[in-house]
């Protein structure tokens, strides 16, 4: 009787496994070149670190602040995003500060999604979308990005939604669609036209849009990040999510935000006041100060929002070159700091990796063990039905310092020599 009574609730049934818990453990060995988890090993900008040290020294900042977001932070966020969106954003009613973008996703889904709802998720997807939708009692409906070969070199832009296939997924039960642009793991930056297709369907079916834009500043030459909330008819039905961790290379600060119309944000605020109530104060104050510094130079190329993406573009290009020289065809991302690559040309036999897992899981485990290089298997970002489609792909993270990429280069250069 004891085991039964203390069983978990229905809402978390089947949600206990997690790719990160599995792979961060395996890759924690310092001798492994870790290009797996999206963890920068480059330094955050010095002024960001300094602002936190300054905030920590102020007594008052060690106690509770406003639950829905530290006043100076929500003010700074409203200014930055008013500029980006070209519309007025009320810091007190249109913004919620959360524990990472993860917390914003959770608050949004708990606030607005429930049993009987369907939520459209574009595949591959950041893995937490599916369990969060399930935990809210709703049904995830998947629609895949498909590779369209138009003859040009393989870029993330080649991965597209089929408009008819997408339209078919919408019905009267569709409560929301989750959009992630720039996209993790593919690196796709949805064009205005692609966003208009999604927006038209949202309006037609009165569907909400949960727009995960954590990589919004990491967009490479020739591409522009378009916020779906700025398209006609979309502000009133969109929650836009951002991340300090990705903006300032401080994933360990775990601060994110949700921005949208008051009539939606107020429900996220109710969830927040019943889950963790308030986020840490000194981190919010430091983030606010960092935002003011960059807000003041948003016309200047030295603004960190632009300088980081320039820094990452050269790392992207280097990573792509290394993989190409190893005989692979990486998908060149237009945004974000991940790159996916099809590893089937390497023809690695992993049948002795004794697990009932998809090829890419076994490949990554083999690669960690025998090559001392880690990545993340792409099927971690897919629903069961689609895993076959993506199981030859793995994801590399390139927000890494030069010495890490140097170490990766050595491994990749020697790869062919060993297998030859």
């Amino acid at each position: 009787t004891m085991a039964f009574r203390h069983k978990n609730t229905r809402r978390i049934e089947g949600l206990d496994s997690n790719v990160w818990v599995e792979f961060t453990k395996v890759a924690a060995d310092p001798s492994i070149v870790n290009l797996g988890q999206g963890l920068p090993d480059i330094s955050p900008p010095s002024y960001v670190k300094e602002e936190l040290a300054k905030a920590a020294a102020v007594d008052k900042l060690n106690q509770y602040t406003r639950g829905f977001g530290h006043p100076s932070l929500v003010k700074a966020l409203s200014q930055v995003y008013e500029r980006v969106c070209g519309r007025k954003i009320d810091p007190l009613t249109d913004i919620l500060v959360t524990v990472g973008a993860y917390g914003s996703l959770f608050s949004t889904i708990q606030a607005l999604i429930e049993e009987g709802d369907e939520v459209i998720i574009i595949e591959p997807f950041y893995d937490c979308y599916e369990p969060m939708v399930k935990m809210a009692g709703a049904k995830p409906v998947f629609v895949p990005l498909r590779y369209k070969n138009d003859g040009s070199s393989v870029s993330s832009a080649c991965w597209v939604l089929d408009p008819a296939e997408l339209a078919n997924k919408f019905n009267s039960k569709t409560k929301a669609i989750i959009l992630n642009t720039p996209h993790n793991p593919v690196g796709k930056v949805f064009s205005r036209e692609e966003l208009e297709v999604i927006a038209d369907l949202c309006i037609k079916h009165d569907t909400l849009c949960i727009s995960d834009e954590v990589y919004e500043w990491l967009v490479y030459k020739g591409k522009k990040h378009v916020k779906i909330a700025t398209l006609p008819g979309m502000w009133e039905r969109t929650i836009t999510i951002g991340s300090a961790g990705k903006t300032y290379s401080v994933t360990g600060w775990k601060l994110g935000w949700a921005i949208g119309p008051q009539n939606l944000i107020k429900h996220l605020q109710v969830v927040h006041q019943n889950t963790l109530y308030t986020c840490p104060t000194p981190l919010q104050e430091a983030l606010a100060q960092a935002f003011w510094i960059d807000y003041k130079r948003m016309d200047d190329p030295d603004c960190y929002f632009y300088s980081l993406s320039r820094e990452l573009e050269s790392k992207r290009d280097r990573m792509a070159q290394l993989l190409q020289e190893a005989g692979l065809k990486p998908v060149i991302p237009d945004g974000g700091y991940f790159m996916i690559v099809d590893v089937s040309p390497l023809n690695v036999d992993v049948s002795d990796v004794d697990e009932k897992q998809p090829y890419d899981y076994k490949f990554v485990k083999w690669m960690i063990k025998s090559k001392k290089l880690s990545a993340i298997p792409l099927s971690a970002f897919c629903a069961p039905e689609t895993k076959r489609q993506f199981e030859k792909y793995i994801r590399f993270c390139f927000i890494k310092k030069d010495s890490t990429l140097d170490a990766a280069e050595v491994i990749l250069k020697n790869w062919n020599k060993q297998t030859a």
Partner: protein
Amino acid sequence: LPTLFLSLFLQAKMSRPVQARRLEGIDKNIWVEFVKLADTYSTVNLGQGFPDFPPPDFLKQAFVRALGREDHALHQYTRAFGHPPLVKILAQFFGKLLGRELDPMTDVMVTVGAYQALFCCFQAFVDEGDEVIVIEPFFDCYETMVKMAGGTPVFVPLRPKAPNDGKLMSSADWQLDPAELASKFNKRTKAIVLNSPNNPLGKVFSRGELQLIADLCVKHDVLCISDEVYEWLVYDGKEHVRIASLQGMWDRTVIIGSAGKTFSATGWKVGWAMGPNRLLQHLRTVHQNSVYHCATAAQEAVAQGFQREFALYGKPDSYFVQLPKELQQKRDWLVQSLDAVGMKPIVPEGTYFLVADISAFKSDVPDVPNSNEPYDSRFAKWMVKNKGLAAIPLSAFCCEAHKSNYNHLIRFCFAKEEATLKAANEILQKWKQEKNSP
């Protein structure tokens, strides 16, 4: 015809509220309202529970050291279920106190404040149809979190016993009726929430009282969610007894703690849950699907704080010895201030809260017949607006049905600098003089 069906479907969707049903009845929050009032009107804020003095130097230094390190690893993700140095020292520290070996990887989980640990417990264990016993008065989030999880809160009140003649009432005089408590347990009871030391009354449950609860938990196979955030704030030589150390309780208890309350750093939002892996595994599932990681740097600093306290345990230099000593003094000042003007304090055995009976001041705030708002809430609002003194009405800590039971009691926080408590005293003295002058 197809267009007609489409627009009917749309109308059906639009007529349904956009928010999920789980938010029903949990949108109001006393803190949002009262914090705003305090910020606007108060000159002396004894309302929301946070210290107005800083965290100890050793903790602030630990944080600065953590930030200044050459490697910036502390600005990046750490282990999702808790930064290794922190879970290790928590396991060591509390293992010693509980007299058992705790595995830092499976028996401890770090959360964003004790608040998030509570959330994980309710989400992990409370399903629709489950009942959860909540002892009144209670920290208000217990009720809303149970509801959000689809459960039914079942309230059982602490009842005041008249104190001996001439003596001030103590929080010890508020007790559960054993028969009444037992009657609340049935086969739908999934858990009981225990908060000792208790916010708002300051009651420190005795071993005997805990045994009563434990016996019922064991008899009915019920979980115990034990909120012990004020564990170090016990006065007059009282002992904080951990219910998980009672026979049969470790296997069915989740213990919740808070760095904010332990180290006077509420703004850091570092808390933890401890218990057997069999229970903690489900908290981990909720955690990895809601916030996943907690901020790294503060966890490192709290780990160092605990390492210091582990070495100094029981010694005079220990913060866990010094803080309650200082707070007891502050408690006694506030008790004196309130008693001197005719507000009758209930002397708390623990926490940094004190509840007082304001009946003697009722004439200042006229009764409004047919008002929805409990008297103590109106009193507290009038007091902050007109006297600049912020406190929280006790009805905030009671369920809807019982809000008028104790409508003459308000809660003060005394974790405040001497200057703040002196200023409060002045306000009270002036107020009394105004009442007495013709």
